[in-house]
């Protein structure tokens, strides 16, 4: 029999471990990634020619990053690796990709999607001024290009990444003007038993906070973001928040990095026609996936943050598990004991995940309180007031309908950044639970596709 064609999308922790497992079983998978180098978001490799050490770049995670990179380097010649290649569509048994302006199709017997996550964002008045970045983008600037997004940066939002990136900026010598967290200490205390599932990560998080505090950075918990002040020419000038004690506070800065934990990149799963289900704890729609990585579509597997936010270690395990599931489904031998062991670890990861969701909750009430004049959809410049108008006056209580009437989610990002907050605003305005609002349907292309794209003849 000809060798099974297995395609892995994504060369982050999940994708790399997945490919490794497939190679160990004697396959030669195709690994595609839109980035220039492997490593994914967390272990993003610096461009060729940059020479920062692992310790400088990845801090406490240096060993893990190095191990993943070594692992990937060792696959050289044994996988068909295609970097700077975007998967833009999926049809039955075929992945459609584009590389340097040429489109081609890759047939597969099994497709393992390890597409990762991006920041989950909640709009705030003024977030469209130049100088507002997502936490992830701020981190990319640092890791990839060794530069800061501003001279004085405010970090606002919630979740473990908030403290991690602020700490990385501090260590890199940037001025951190403040770390403003919407969750309260008591949320984290309540989540402590679950967070203890991974004591090392918990310790790391606490040490980032301690270092920031020691450096004199104001760390505020339980804040309510009110406004990012600025203007069209100068960009961001300050951030105004209400503190937990009710006092209003303005912090001067020239950049804001913002994020509320993560949202999985699910468009490929959507285009593969995977079933989705609402996750009431995280208040977001996630593709249905078993702990072993099987989606609802035979032959399509999901692993890593793209399916469920378990963090980097969880993603490595998930990648291995998805590969083992694919191998088993293709009729190849797999080591049951290895599967069981990985599943055991994943259960711990999942406990920790729930702890994070509880400890750093998505600030739903902020969507309700967002002033009418605040922009929700930055691509199309549509305000919260307009979204509320189509909900209340035109009866758009469903996500795609609200998009059709208001254009929220219709722009370049196709709702990847405004979709979840938009759904909360609609839910509140309509007085219905957010799960009834549904989710925006994924539509190709996954990211903007140049009209000059040509089909490559095989």
């Amino acid at each position, binding site marked *: 029999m000809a060798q099974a064609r297995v395609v892995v999308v994504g060369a982050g922790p999940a994708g790399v471990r997945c490919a490794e497992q497939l190679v160990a079983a004697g396959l030669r998978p195709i690994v595609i990634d839109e980035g220039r180098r492997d490593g994914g978001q967390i272990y993003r490799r610096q461009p060729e020619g940059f020479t920062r050490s692992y310790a400088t770049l990845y801090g406490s995670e240096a060993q893990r990053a190095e191990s993943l990179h070594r692992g990937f380097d060792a696959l050289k010649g044994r996988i068909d690796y295609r970097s700077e290649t975007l998967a833009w569509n999926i049809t039955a048994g075929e992945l459609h990709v584009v590389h340097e302006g040429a489109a081609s199709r890759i047939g597969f017997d099994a497709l393992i999607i390890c597409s990762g996550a991006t920041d989950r964002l909640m709009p705030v008045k003024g977030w469209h001024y130049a100088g507002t970045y997502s936490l992830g983008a701020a981190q990319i600037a640092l890791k990839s290009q060794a530069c800061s997004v501003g001279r004085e940066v405010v970090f606002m939002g919630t979740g473990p990444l908030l403290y991690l990136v602020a700490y990385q900026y501090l260590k890199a010598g940037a001025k951190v003007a403040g770390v403003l967290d919407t969750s309260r200490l008591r949320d984290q205390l309540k989540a402590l038993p679950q967070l203890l599932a991974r004591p090392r990560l918990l310790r790391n998080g606490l040490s980032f906070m301690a270092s920031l505090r020691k450096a004199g950075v104001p760390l505020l918990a339980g804040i309510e973001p009110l406004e990012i002040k600025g203007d069209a020419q100068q960009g961001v000038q300050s951030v105004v928040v209400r503190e937990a004690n009710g006092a209003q506070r303005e912090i001067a800065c020239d950049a804001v990095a913002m994020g509320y934990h993560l949202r999985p990149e699910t468009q490929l799963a959507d285009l593969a026609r995977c079933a989705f289900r609402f996750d009431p704890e995280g208040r977001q729609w996630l593709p249905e996936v078993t702990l072993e990585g099987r989606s609802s579509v035979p032959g399509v597997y999901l692993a890593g943050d793209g399916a469920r936010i378990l963090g980097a270690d969880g993603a490595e395990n998930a990648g291995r598990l998805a590969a083992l599931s694919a191998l088993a489904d293709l009729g190849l031998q797999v080591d049951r004991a290895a599967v069981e062991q990985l599943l055991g670890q994943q259960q711990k990861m999942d406990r920790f995940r729930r702890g994070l969701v509880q400890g750093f909750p998505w600030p739903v009430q902020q969507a309700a309180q967002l002033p009418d004049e605040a922009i929700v959809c930055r691509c199309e410049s549509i305000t919260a007031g307009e979204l509320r108008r189509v909900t209340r006056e035109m009866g758009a209580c469903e996500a795609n309908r609200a998009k059709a009437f208001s254009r929220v989610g219709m722009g370049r990002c196709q709702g990847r950044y405004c979709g979840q907050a938009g759904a909360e605003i609609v839910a509140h305005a309509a007085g219905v639970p957010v799960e009834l609002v549904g989710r925006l349907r994924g539509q*190709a292309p996954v990211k903007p596709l*140049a009209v000059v794209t040509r089909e490559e003849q095989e």
Partner: protein
Amino acid sequence: MNAQSADVLIIGGGLMGASAAYFLRRRGVSVIVLERGLVGQQASGTNFGNARRQARNLQQLPLANRAYEIWKQLPQLIDDDLEFVQPGHIRVAYTEEQVGVLEKYARDTREYGLHLQMIYGDEMRARYPFLGKEVRAASLSPDDGHANPRLAAPAFARAAIRIGAHIFENTEVTELAKEGGEFRAGCSDGRVFRAPSMLVASGAWGDTMSAQFGEPVPLVARGPQLGVTEPMPYRIGPSIGVATPLLEETLYVRQIKRGNIIFGGCGRGPAHTDTRRAYVLPEHILTQFRQLARLLPPVARLSVIRTWSGIEGYMPDSLPIMGPSAKVSGLYYAFGFSGHGFQIGPGVGDVMAELIATGSTSTPIEPFLIKRFMQAPAEQVLAV
């Protein structure tokens, strides 16, 4: 009126059903519309939005003219803005033969009041500098335009509701029958609606309904494919279509005031009436890209941000099924608009309302009657 019964039951809340409900109410007739999903979610909300009379079959022009009069009055009529603009519509040709086709069409449509202008050479280049060099001539229909299809059917529905129509969304009709002089529509959730008259306006699903009344028609459901680019400065003006006998050249394009360019054509994908989804086929997108670069070179510098499709019902002669049933009194049809129902939509609603309320219509619809598909008796078929 009991909300479960009315003078007319309309099955399907697309543009046809919604506008018919509106015009029936204007004539004082009580109506109930049953829509399986949300109003205007299928073909009527996913289409390209061309509101053009040019390039229509001559037999359709009286209906298109009636629709045009409604489009012009729209914001006042339904108190809503459908983003209808009239920058004209140009149809362009790449070959001498097609130039001839356009010229003949321009002559033939004069008696229908279309007044198309043929534009050639330097004048055409000066007026439309964005056209590719292969374009030989353009036929301008100055009053044509385009509108936002996502807004159209819901706006008609809201206007109809304001004047007393009852519209039930998320209401799927699973059985239709005529009993004791009354039509009955049974729904998947057990509700039953009744009326002495019924209008089947269920788009690509219309054939299964006409078949329940013994009038099957050869409708095929397909999914035309559309896409939209990122914005560029607004400068194109008219909507543009390519006159060609080759499916892969049949591109149509319009630019909206925000700057984005919407395009479609060049091929249709399969449509799944059971799951109610039509997915785009990547090969058609790439064909559209090639044709876009050919028709409008400046657009080739942009990126496309989204593609989509929708489910439309096509008849073998490209004409709709419109008018009374040939077999069942009180039963009316308006479906199968074969890829060009958007512009005529408001006219269809008005004509059907007139027909149902008065028994006749001042706009000729003879070519659209379902009786053209009446099957020959079985013995005759066997004898052939």
